[in-house]
């Protein structure tokens, strides 16, 4: 029996779709059977991030309306044959799917696949309700900005109200140089405010843009970027492994400096 995980954020543009694609590829790299559902009806994007935009025949709305079987709509990934995409419909609106239909679909898919990742649309309306309906776990993506953290806080409340407790936080686009200068909230600041568990931090990385240009998620490039490594670590934590967090910047508190000077810590 598989797990259904929704990737959500409230605010748009913080990296939900990129995160969904990377976690999906990362899980498939470890041999898991994965389905990615693009729940952003009318504004589908997971297909282009995955580089599968030319292969779409059926979509999510076709499946829930019974125009095709789920299997017919699933697009197999180019490189990982245990990874599938269920694309969103582009010409319909969010009301084309109901939470009950999503629940049923997710229940059906998890019979056969290990992980169902649902890419949630921005906002807190119908599209959000649909996306979370079938999920039993939630990952919240935020960036170290006031607006994104505020929206994440709202989403945490709404998830709790929907009995989706214990969501995990992904902090995206962290810039260690700015944190060091005191011009960006750091991980502890955000965790203190949101009071939920952290599952990973993705450093801001131009390689993500480059890989998205190509339609090849950065996580698959094993010899290279820090962001890819960060995603691979999150993948392992999603599977229940305990993986130490990447050291993105040094803690330079007076105490640790003093200790260093006095030779107490390395």
């Amino acid at each position, binding site marked *: 029996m598989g797990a259904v995980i929704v990737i959500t954020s409230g605010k748009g543009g913080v990296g939900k779709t990129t995160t969904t694609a990377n976690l999906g590829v990362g899980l498939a790299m470890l041999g898991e059977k994965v389905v990615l559902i693009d729940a952003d009806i009318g504004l589908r994007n997971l297909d282009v991030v995955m580089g599968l935009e030319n292969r779409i025949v059926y979509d999510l709305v076709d499946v829930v309306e019974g125009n095709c079987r789920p299997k017919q709509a699933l697009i197999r990934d180019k490189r990982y044959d245990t990874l599938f995409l269920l694309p969103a419909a582009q010409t319909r609106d969010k009301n084309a799917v109901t939470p009950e239909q999503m629940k049923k679909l997710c229940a059906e898919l998890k019979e056969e696949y290990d992980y169902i990742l649902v890419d949630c649309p921005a906002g807190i309306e119908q599209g959000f309700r649909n996306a979370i309906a079938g999920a039993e776990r939630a990952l919240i993506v935020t960036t170290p*900005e*006031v607006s994104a*953290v*505020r929206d994440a*806080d*709202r989403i945490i*409340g709404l998830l709790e109200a929907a009995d989706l407790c214990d969501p995990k936080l992904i902090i995206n686009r962290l810039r260690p140089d700015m*944190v060091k*200068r*005191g*011009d*960006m*909230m*750091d991980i502890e*600041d955000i965790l203190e*405010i949101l009071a939920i568990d952290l599952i990973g931090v993705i450093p801001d990385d131009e390689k993500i843009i480059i890989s998205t240009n190509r339609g090849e998620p950065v996580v698959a490039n094993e010899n290279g970027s820090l962001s890819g490594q960060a995603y691979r670590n999150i993948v392992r934590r999603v599977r229940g492994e305990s993986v130490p967090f990447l050291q993105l910047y040094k803690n*330079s*508190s*007076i105490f640790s*400096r003093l200790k260093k000077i006095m030779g107490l810590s390395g």
Partner: protein
Amino acid sequence: MNLRALLNALAGKQDSKDIAKERLRLVLVHDRTSVSPEFMEQIKEEIIKVISKYMEIDTANTVINLHKTEGTAVLEANLAIKAIRRPG
């Protein structure tokens, strides 16, 4: 406190991240206390239920309000008492 924060404090400056954090804290106090009328009604009923164990409450003249001021929120309950029960 790290060295930078200490130097800033001495110079009377504030890191922009601390400004961000402080603004966020304030806005969340406000967001988190934006509750629906149904929710307020529920709180009111429960408060009346608890207090009624000790006092007889005039429920018609009971008002519960959530006040938000800068940085804090206060729950204010005005309960009109009809009679106080004898301590058992």
